[in-house]
């Protein structure tokens, strides 16, 4: 291996191999690309054909849902950052018993159906739930409020941030932090000035995943927070409500288009920001 690498760098070999496999890999790739993109393009074209897209989008029903979605998913992201960044760092760098178990627990909401999350949240935070009943004693009712929407989003989306960031932290060579420490810089300062900037690409992609997942959350919200315009009816709930109402498919398509555009913009912005931060580091 080492004698080979002098003549041909492994990466060169890898590229050559990719090229020879090009056509073999191309057909499934093209099919898969079509599978993903055709429905989205069809959605856009159908929305255009239906007309009155702007009228539908500017209806109070859609505007309320859009505002609620933007507000709740942003707050969810903020909460996920506040709780997720320390958690991810601990999971990546901490040396303590049960770290593996915790890592698995963090991943659990990612693989659970959101409806399960909804039922679990209801049982815990509902009026008759273990925590919910205590909260009611204090005069706080969570169910059917915007708070419930945020809790549902946080539950299902925060793990995406933690998981991505944990991997980012783990990929950082600890010697950077050690050097910083030997130079007499405090641990917190090292974390903020060395570790976090190095993990920026992971932080960005994790944040975008978390945000978009929060934006698309449906199952847990529907079960735990209910469905009420302006209060708990986010965009995905508005889509399903429109689809099952007299507005029908046309209404659902119009709102779906908004979410499609918002999600696409988020992804593109994240990619650009990621590239820039990679370039600077």
């Amino acid at each position, binding site marked *: 291996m080492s004698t080979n690498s002098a003549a041909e760098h492994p990466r060169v070999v890898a590229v050559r191999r990719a090229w020879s496999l*090009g056509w073999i890999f191309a057909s499934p790739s093209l099919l898969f690309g079509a599978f993903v993109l055709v429905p989205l*393009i069809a959605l856009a074209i159908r929305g255009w054909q239906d007309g009155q897209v702007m009228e539908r989008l500017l209806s109070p029903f859609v505007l309320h849902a859009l505002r609620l979605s933007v507000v709740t998913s942003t707050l969810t992201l903020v909460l996920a950052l506040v709780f997720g960044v320390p958690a991810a760092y601990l999971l990546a760098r901490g040396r303590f018993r049960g770290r593996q178990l915790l890592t698995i627990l963090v991943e659990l909401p990612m693989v659970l159906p959101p409806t399960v999350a909804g039922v679990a949240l209801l049982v815990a935070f509902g009026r008759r739930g273990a925590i919910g009943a205590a909260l009611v004693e204090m005069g706080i009712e969570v169910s059917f409020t915007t708070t419930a929407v945020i809790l549902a989003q946080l539950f299902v989306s925060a793990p995406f941030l933690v998981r991505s960031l944990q991997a980012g932290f783990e990929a950082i060579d600890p010697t950077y932090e050690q050097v910083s420490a030997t130079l007499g810089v405090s641990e917190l300062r090292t974390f903020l000035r060395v570790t976090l900037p190095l993990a920026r690409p992971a932080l960005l992609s994790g944040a975008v995943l978390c945000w978009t997942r929060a934006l698309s959350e449906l199952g847990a919200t529907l079960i735990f927070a209910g469905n009420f315009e302006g209060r708990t009816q986010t965009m995905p709930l508005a889509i399903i409500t429109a689809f099952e109402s007299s507005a029908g498919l046309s209404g659902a398509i119009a709102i779906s288009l908004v979410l499609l555009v918002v999600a696409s913009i988020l992804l593109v912005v994240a990619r650009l920001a990621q590239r820039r931060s990679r370039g600077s580091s």
Partner: protein
Amino acid sequence: MRFDTFSRSATVGLLAVLMALAVACSGGAPESAATPTVAATSAATAVASPTTPPLSGKVTVFAASSLTESFKNIAAAFQKANPGVTVEFNFAASSALEAQLKQAAPADVFASADTANMDKAAGKSLIDGTPATFARNLPVIVVPADNRAGIASAKDLSKAGTKIVLAGPDVPIGNYARQIIDKLAADPAYGAAYKDATMNNVVSNEANVRAVLAKIELGEADAGIVYKTDALVSGARVKTIAVPDSANVIAVYPIAVVKATKNRDAAAAFVQFVRSSEAQALLEAAGFDSAS
């Protein structure tokens, strides 16, 4: 370099294919809805033949959520009489079922909890012939078993701070509930303010009657409006309060064969069976009122 050229041509090719497919997809929707109609007409001629072979195949029934238990029992009896037929269900709000039918969902029978959604389906030529009424039902107020909010009558729904869950306005039971509240508000004993006060207490518009029932069973909400039959399904988990007769509406359940059915004979037989005395007895046992 060569790889670049390859990937570029692949991307161009992909985009071309995508555009063509997307146009075909979006343009094709109405056509695909029309195709089953052709199959349906040929199946209709088969019905006309005098000798009827034993029924077989699958019958997919789109039925209102409130029919869940009764229709499962009816299907078991139907399958016993017709061993060659398998009955499958899609239970949801009648409004959701109507929306799915409109998208050419594969269904053979549609049973709605109101005439409004059946009429909508009929208006779009989604069903065959005239729908037949097969059951009636009565909306009731349900509260959690412990009734912590102390709801004693329909009047208490307007009490400040009461958390009410209804089904969405297009869902039959949600529509009936709003009619009831309107009727009560028209009664001087309740007063016009009753409507606003009660509607302000609504905290969620649920997808179907069973979702309303679940929130009440759990005690998440203080009161909801469901059918008498749903309250019976919940048993002791909820308490039932009658809606004053003068303000109540009677839910009417129509059933029809879906026009696009691919198993017309079996679908028609199932519809007929639902109207038979055997099925009617099962419905009455569940708390439904007979069709006539």
